[in-house]
């Protein structure tokens, strides 16, 4: 017991330190290289440093967004894996992010074309509705195909359909207002401003705290439906809540940063490996921290690898995390045979 507790504390402290390091790193790297001493100065008194404006109005919101949204995405994936009782679920592979993307693109293009300003909150709501629609389709399919791998294939197909329609919408509505939409639709933190950060911090923190408070019934649900019911869990209500929470999280991410691939599916798996536990009370904070670190690092790479040109965040996360997903698929196949 004690050994487990020590392990958790060490891992959490280590992850917080790594996150702090990445935070400084993220502020420093980019098209303009900035020294650590100048970063600290500009955080204290931005007016007095040459790079102050870059740090405060461009890099800082972007980095905070990567932390908050990366964490949100991983927790969303963790909840989906609980819901489907399977580690190969995630908002991206199940087409849920793409559904959100489609709804955001449609509402942006049509409302902006009519000269209506769209607030961040409206974008989140549109993304949430899109997530729920994709989720509904996936749940109906899950009822029909019992095989999880097949369900993932269906999810990827839903993702392709949504992405294709999004592409049509964006192409036909080629307006200077939505010039950033193309970058966003591939996944990017480049368009993030302070308003976005503020809205996502509020939504994500409230949702994550709610998830954390639910770790007891979620843990019971991991024992299978019948035993969870016998423990006094209201299964129907829990299932609905799981879907809503994971949709809110992945919708917030998609609304501001577009679809980010594989973070939601791979990070919970990596965290289970590090923590040697699947308990939600450990996994929810661990996934949040792990997702934040990985997304922040990937964003740094996206900004700097081919600077001054940026690559999409999904390109980077795919390169690093898709192999993890392949590993999960193969490892499961082997263990289910044995």
């Amino acid at each position, binding site marked *: 017991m004690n050994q487990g507790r020590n392990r958790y504390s060490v891992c959490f402290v280590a992850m917080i330190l790594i996150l702090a390091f990445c935070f400084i790193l993220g502020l420093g790297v980019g098209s303009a290289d900035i020294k650590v001493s100048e970063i600290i100065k500009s955080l204290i008194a931005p007016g007095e440093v040459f790079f102050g404006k870059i740090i405060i109005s461009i890099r800082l919101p972007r980095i905070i967004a990567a932390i908050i949204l990366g964490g949100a995405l991983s927790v969303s994936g963790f909840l989906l894996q609980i819901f489907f009782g399977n*580690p190969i679920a995630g908002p991206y592979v199940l087409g849920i992010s793409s559904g959100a993307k489609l709804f955001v693109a449609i509402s942006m293009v049509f409302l902006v074309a009519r000269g209506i300003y769209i607030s961040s909150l409206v974008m989140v709501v549109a993304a949430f509705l899109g997530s729920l629609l994709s989720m509904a389709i996936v749940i109906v399919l899950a009822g029909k195909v019992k095989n999880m791998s097949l369900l993932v294939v269906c999810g990827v197909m839903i993702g392709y359909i949504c992405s294709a329609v999004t592409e049509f919408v964006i192409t036909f509505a080629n307006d200077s207002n939505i010039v950033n939409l193309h970058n966003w639709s591939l996944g990017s933190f480049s368009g993030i401003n302070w308003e976005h950060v503020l809205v996502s911090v509020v939504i994500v923190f409230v949702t994550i705290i709610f998830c954390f*408070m639910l*770790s*007891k019934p979620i*843990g*019971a649900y*991991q*024992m*299978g439906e*019948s*035993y969870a*019911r*016998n*423990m*006094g*869990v*209201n299964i129907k209500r829990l299932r609905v809540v799981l879907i809503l929470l994971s949709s809110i999280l992945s919708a917030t991410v998609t609304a501001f940063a577009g679809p980010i691939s594989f973070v939601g599916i791979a990070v919970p798996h990596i965290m*289970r490996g590090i923590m*040697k*536990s*699947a*308990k939600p*009370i450990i996994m929810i904070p661990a996934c949040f921290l792990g997702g934040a670190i990985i997304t922040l690092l990937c964003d740094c790479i996206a900004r700097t690898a081919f600077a001054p040109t940026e690559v999409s965040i999904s390109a980077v996360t795919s390169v690093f995390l898709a192999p993890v997903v392949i590993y999960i698929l193969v490892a499961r196949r082997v263990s289910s045979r044995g």
Partner: protein
Amino acid sequence: MDNKISLDGLDVGYNKSIGVVNDVSFDVAPGEIVALIGANGAGKSTVLKTITRQLQKLSGEIRICEMNESDMTEEDMSKAVSMVMTEHIHPELMTCFDVVATGRYPYTGRLGILSEDDIKAVDTAIEMVGATEVEKKDFMKVSDGQRQRIMLARAICQDTDIMILDEPTSFLDIQFKIDILSVIKRLAKESKKAVIMSIHELEFVPAIADKVIGVAEGKVFKVGTPSEILTGENLEAMYHMASGTGKVMADGLWQYAAALEKLLWQK
């Protein structure tokens, strides 16, 4: 006598048009073990799943600890009825201790953190089923027999007056069967728990059960003591055996049962 659980005219099944078993009525007193026997597919599990709310009852009444089951919340039920089902669970990265500890769920706080008392209850339950040596091992990596012990320990530390056990001895070797059944017997006799279990091994029934419910042809075929139910004639009817074979079976069964009874009580 106050019964822990009473079924009255209970119809159970997967949907309204075809009830699997109709008009099930019996009572279980504290300390009493009731064995549900019958052919595969007779509906034993369906009855048990209905009592534990895995299935909705079609009609009739279930009374649990003097309360109407329909008026009880999920939480009330979790403190009154524990269960071991036949379906396998696949908990990830959980030790046997962790699995048993899930039985304390109804008693832990908002975040489900175990108190000293909870840990003591878990340890006692693990000791009772004799699984102390696997306590720290991964649940997915121990044998079927050990897993079944762990699931029983889980139900024990849920600390309920009623225990529902669906084929708790299936797929186990003879020694594991004897071990599990002696634990169940001790629970009923010493802790006054009311136990309803389904069982295929008829030879164990005389040693373990106070009352036997034979389920056949979509209804309760007969209720009685083991010696009243386990007769050649009844076996032939319940298990669709050729006439004359039941007597041979029953004779052998009773001889084996006598041997097992000795072993079960030695514990």
